[in-house]
């Protein structure tokens, strides 16, 4: 370590290592993310909120390259703003997901970020869309980021249709906690966003308040 000048991180891209998840329930969606941003082996932000608002009732979860993900979210936020003024009503979640998908597909060779789009609209209620590699698919729930690999078994076994909002929030927090424990690139606090027809609720669960499992 004596020779290490530490400038490697300057050339290494900043990645949101990440665990992100979005779950649909009857009447809305719950999104969750961890808060770790790494550049090589160094954590550059331990409290980043990766749940980015695209509109009042539509959020997206960021993963992959921090610059690419932030830029896509900001561009789509702007495009949705214009679109919602043009149609003179709140945009559909499918529209937001399509805008994200269009950028992800067109620039798929240059970009390395995956955004999960989730929200509530009047027409179809709560919806979760995955946009990995430029596809667009609606799913009952979606997980993403490096930490997601460790929790596929858990989410596949534990997810049930027809959960209530509180059960969904607990499911999301449990998933995040398990992924954070196993994935080195995920950590920090858990951010939870719940969206339904009454509004949007943002919550932070601090590290020591996360649920514990057998080895703690």
């Amino acid at each position: 370590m004596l020779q290490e000048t530490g400038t490697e991180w300057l050339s290494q891209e900043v990645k949101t290592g990440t665990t992100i998840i979005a779950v649909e329930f009857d009447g809305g969606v719950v999104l969750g993310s961890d808060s770790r941003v790494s550049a090589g082996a160094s954590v550059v932000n331990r409290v980043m909120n990766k749940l980015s608002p695209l509109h009042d009732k539509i959020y997206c979860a960021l993963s992959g390259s921090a610059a690419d993900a932030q830029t896509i979210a900001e561009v789509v936020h702007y495009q949705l703003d214009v679109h919602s003024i043009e149609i003179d009503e709140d945009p559909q979640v499918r529209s937001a997901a399509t805008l994200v998908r269009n950028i992800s597909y067109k620039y798929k060779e240059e970009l390395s970020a995956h955004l999960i789009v989730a929200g509530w609209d009047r027409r179809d209620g709560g919806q979760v869309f995955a946009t990995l590699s430029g596809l667009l698919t609606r799913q009952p729930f979606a997980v993403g980021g490096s930490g997601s690999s460790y929790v596929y078994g858990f989410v596949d076994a534990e997810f049930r249709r027809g959960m209530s909002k509180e059960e969904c929030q607990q499911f999301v927090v449990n998933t995040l906690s398990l992924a954070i424990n196993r994935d080195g690139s995920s950590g920090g606090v858990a951010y939870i966003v719940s969206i339904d027809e009454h509004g949007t609720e943002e919550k932070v669960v601090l590290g020591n308040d996360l649920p514990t499992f057998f080895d703690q």
Partner: protein
Amino acid sequence: MNEHKGHKYIFQIVSGSILSWNAVLEGEANKVGYSLPAARKTGTTICGVVFKDGVILGADTRATEGMIVADKNCSKIHYISPNIYCCGAGTAADTEMTTQIISSNLELHALSTGRVPRVATANRMLKQMLFRYQGYIGAALVLGGVDCNGPHLYSIYPHGSTDKLPYVTMGSGSLAAMAVFEDRYKPDMEEEDAKRLVRDAIAAGIFNDLGSGSNIDLCVITKGKLDYIRPHDEANKKGVRTGDYKYKRGTTSVLTKSVTALNLEVVEETVLTMDTS
């Protein structure tokens, strides 16, 4: 991506213009045994903190070219607007030019809007430019200022990602400085405590990182006033020599002495002082 005459074109999403980067020049130079000049990097420790009335930015003053110190007292805290300043780490030319370009555009923008510029605006302009160049502009910045919405502090990375935080560090000495912040930062500190904290964070970088050194510059930005303190702390003052290698007159004995007068006429006299600091 298109391949055209050896140039690579990377399409930019935000405004539709195209960037080209000439990879051929570097390849040709390497073939004949030359390498392109190594860009001068500011090894660097820079940091910023939000305190009760505003923000404080701090920086060391060493600029390195490989393992040699190119400048012992360079200024790393750059002007963006009267209420916004920016510390720069990474390639010295990139941080200098990027901050100057955004400073210029921000001044025009402020004249156009008729309002004092906001820190979030400077952040957007910087991140959109850096993203457009896909990380090839090696500028890692700590942007801080006070505007109508209060004090704000951002860290901006070369690829174009930004973080809005109460305290940030960047540069090769960032880990040393962050250790100090994580230990002693408290929200809503008083100005003197905050100045001491920033000074100690930069000092940690100066003494524990080879790429950082020399003095500590500080910039205190509050709603009413701006203090650009350069240097705030001369942590590495040049020592006074205790001995002298000059020999006394008479050490060498003189055998013969002859003096020849040169008749010269003084035409012009100019004096240029050399900066020996």
